[in-house]
């Protein structure tokens, strides 16, 4: 069960000056164009709920949960309100008041029990392939047609790699790789590309075997306690002095490890020192490669087939880790890339954890705009650095689309001389 003191402690609500600066940056508000959909109303409704001038209701629960947790509001807030922490707490209260749907319960259960998740992924793989034969073409999971969902890995990525670290003779040091569920269960080729690239750059890659889901899908939906075990396990494994960096290929996991762990622990009244220490070493793989580009450059084959590429910036990279221009900069440097920026390259894709499932219409409107503008660039490849965004962007493309979605690591890996 969620944390449950008598009254929601929400000091943030008194710091909101109600100026409205959060409205025009909120992807949900921009779709719905009504106050209740925006961050300011969520803060004010939370205030009324806390002060007991508004009773709880299913409708309130819906309003509070109709949020991508993208962090744009926090980034734009003149008064420094930490919306994500506040909403996380409010969501846990809503769960206490109204419970959660069985499908959410199932997801949260698996994400907090890695062993079972591993097993479930095998069934899911079979299930997906089997079920697709029987489902109509129109059947959708949230806003995504079932046929456009990615296939699950034959075997989880972490079981495909040797337990021994990938060593190099002239090692420039050890990198711990936090693989995330996206790579582990769905996009194993991204994980292989990451190991290959870092190895060529001279690093020794170590993949702690007993790592678990970063926990972000749990805590942003208010399941703080369930997330606490995941956080503690990961911090224990990754908080090491003898390493160069902890890398992630997932912007969402990165933001959890980089920023949110200590926030969640603080919310729960637990010690944050180890998480804070660990967070200083967390690096997004795109940014890490750019910073160490000199190590990669000699290995890139200038003869590689050129591609016109556009980019989607994940919210969890910009707002969650403060990485703004780095990945675009990297794309511009790659010898086989013609980079074309989409006008809304830095807008949210509308995926937002389970948002695409819970609010399919709004999510679809948001992603459709993205797709329109990505097509307009004329690019044939749409790269990003987050499996969640990949699933949503790719899942909403048409069968006839010539543009396809890919992790930036696969693009880089193709240019390595083999």
């Amino acid at each position, binding site marked *: 069960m969620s944390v449950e003191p008598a009254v929601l402690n929400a000091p943030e609500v*008194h*710091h909101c*000056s*109600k*100026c*409205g*600066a959060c*409205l*025009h940056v909120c992807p949900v508000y921009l779709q719905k*164009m*009504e*106050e*209740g959909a925006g961050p*300011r*109303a969520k803060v*004010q*409704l939370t205030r*009324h709920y806390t002060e007991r001038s*508004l009773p709880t*209701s299913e*409708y*309130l629960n819906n*309003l509070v949960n109709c949020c991508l947790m993208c962090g744009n509001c926090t980034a734009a*807030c*003149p*008064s*420094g309100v930490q919306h994500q922490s506040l909403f996380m707490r409010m969501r846990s209260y809503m769960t206490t008041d109204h419970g959660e749907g069985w499908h959410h319960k199932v997801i949260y259960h698996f994400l907090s029990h890695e062993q079972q998740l591993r097993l479930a992924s095998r069934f899911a793989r079979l299930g997906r392939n089997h079920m697709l034969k029987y489902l109509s073409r129109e059947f959708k999971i949230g806003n995504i047609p079932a046929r456009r969902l990615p296939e699950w890995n034959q075997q989880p990525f972490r079981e495909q790699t040797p337990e021994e670290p990938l060593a190099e003779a002239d090692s420039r040091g050890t990198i711990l790789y936090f693989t995330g569920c996206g790579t582990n269960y769905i996009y194993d080729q991204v994980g292989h590309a990451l190991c290959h690239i870092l190895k060529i750059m001279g690093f020794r890659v170590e993949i702690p075997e007993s790592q678990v889901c970063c926990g972000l899908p749990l805590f942003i939906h208010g399941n703080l306690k369930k997330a606490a075990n995941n956080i503690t396990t990961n911090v224990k494994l990754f908080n090491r002095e003898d390493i160069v960096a902890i890398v992630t290929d997932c912007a969402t996991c990165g933001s959890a490890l980089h920023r949110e762990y200590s926030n969640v622990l603080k919310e729960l009244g637990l010690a944050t020192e180890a998480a804070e220490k660990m967070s200083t070493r967390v690096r997004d793989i795109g940014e890490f490669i750019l910073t160490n580009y000199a190590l990669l450059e000699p290995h890139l084959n200038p003869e590689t087939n050129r591609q016109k590429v556009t980019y989607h910036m994940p919210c969890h990279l910009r707002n969650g880790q403060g990485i703004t221009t780095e990945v675009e900069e990297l794309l511009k440097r790659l010898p086989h890339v013609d980079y074309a920026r989409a006008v809304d390259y830095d807008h949210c894709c509308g995926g937002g954890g389970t948002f695409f499932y819970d609010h399919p219409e709004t999510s679809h409107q948001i992603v459709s705009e993205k797709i329109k503008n990505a097509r307009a660039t004329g690019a044939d490849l749409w790269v990003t650095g987050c499996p969640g965004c990949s699933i949503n962007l790719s899942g909403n493309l048409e069968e006839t689309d010539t543009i396809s979605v890919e992790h930036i690591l696969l693009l880089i890996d193709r240019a390595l001389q083999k």
Partner: protein
Amino acid sequence: MIGEGGYQQSMNTLIKKKFHSIVGDDHFRDRPEDLISYSYDAFTVEAAPDLVLLPVSTTQISEILKLASEHRIPVTARGAGSSICGAPVPIHGGIVLSMTMMNKILETNTADRYCIVEPGVINGDLQVELAKTGFFYPPDPGSMAFSTIGGNLAQNAGGPRCLKYGVTSDYVLGMEVVLASGEVIRFGSRNVKDVTGYRLSGLFCGSEGTLGIVTEITLKVLPQPEAYRTVLAVFNNLDDSAATVSDIIGAGILPAALELLDKVLINVVEDANNIGLPRGAEGLLLIEVDGSEEQVEKELALITGKARNNNAVDIQQARTPAEREALWRARRSLYSCMARLKPNCIVEDATVPASKLPEMIRGIRAIINKYGLLAGISAHAGDGNMHPLISCDMRDQEEMERVDKAIEEIFKLAMACNGTLSGEHGIGIAKRKYLSMSIDEPTLNFMHTLKHAVDPHGILNPGKAI
């Protein structure tokens, strides 16, 4: 049931159904959560409406107002709700008419230099659209990234570059307005020169939705200037910086912006932005000129001369667009820097003739000190538009009493300087009690006569503006 003020007290289900049939499900909101969501702007007073409607057409609005008139239901128009004087807060209940879904740019015509927009268009979005063809719309309120043109018009919004270019009302060529009766009127045209009939746009700008609901606006737009020069002048004495402003304006130079910051603000801005502002300085002027290359060079030389004559200890010029942007970002961050110090931040905007600036700044500083407030002084100094920023906590009653007293004294001081209550934020609920300081009785009566003539039942945003 008709209650205080002659308004319908609670809306019965039957009337609600009638409104529902005008706009339909997607544009009708009456749950408590929605009513709370429309109970506030950035001012302190809050009040929930009985009903929220989000119309998408003039026809719908006309039908809504006919019905509201018939049943004496107050109607309060609302844009982004970013006003800081309570203008869109429905203090008599009734309907909040949210204009956010009427947000189309209907036409931009650079050959004839105008554009036509619906009221819900965001100022910043219009700027982006106009910039594609090398044009701009000058009024630039601090909220421009999220406030609507309709809201800007209702408050007759200004901003830093209004010193040179004028405020919202200087750019409104024409409007479509739905009157309280539901009748639709259109006035003005697409012509910059137009003396056909009364110039009603001047009347509706700043009327805070008390005279009619604006449904379409024709705006004058300008070509972007060819060149900019941006400088920062540093002073060890606040009076010297104020004197520099008076000298510049007095010499007939009209910069695109002339912004003043006092020591408190210099330091909080530097804490947050870390761009190398001189922490020891007592006063800072951010000056921007725009125009042709020759013109900006000439004006820049004159301005730096005036600053040096008034003992400026340092004058720094932004050398790159990035440096210019950093200075403006710092200026725009004033509010947020002060808002972070305490839960709330009140910005006043009493305005005085530019020559009274030194006197006004000294006076405001004395008042702030007298009441022991945490406050900084900024000003769109070129047009005497003062912006004292007061950090406070609404929950601290004792502090708020001091804030109230200080604000009243600032207004008295402004009046003694031939000033006015509000330069660009509007009256709303916030300054209504001070109106008599600025407007005499016959004049206020004349305004009420006008209001009564167009809105005999007083249903349009009652309790605001006048």
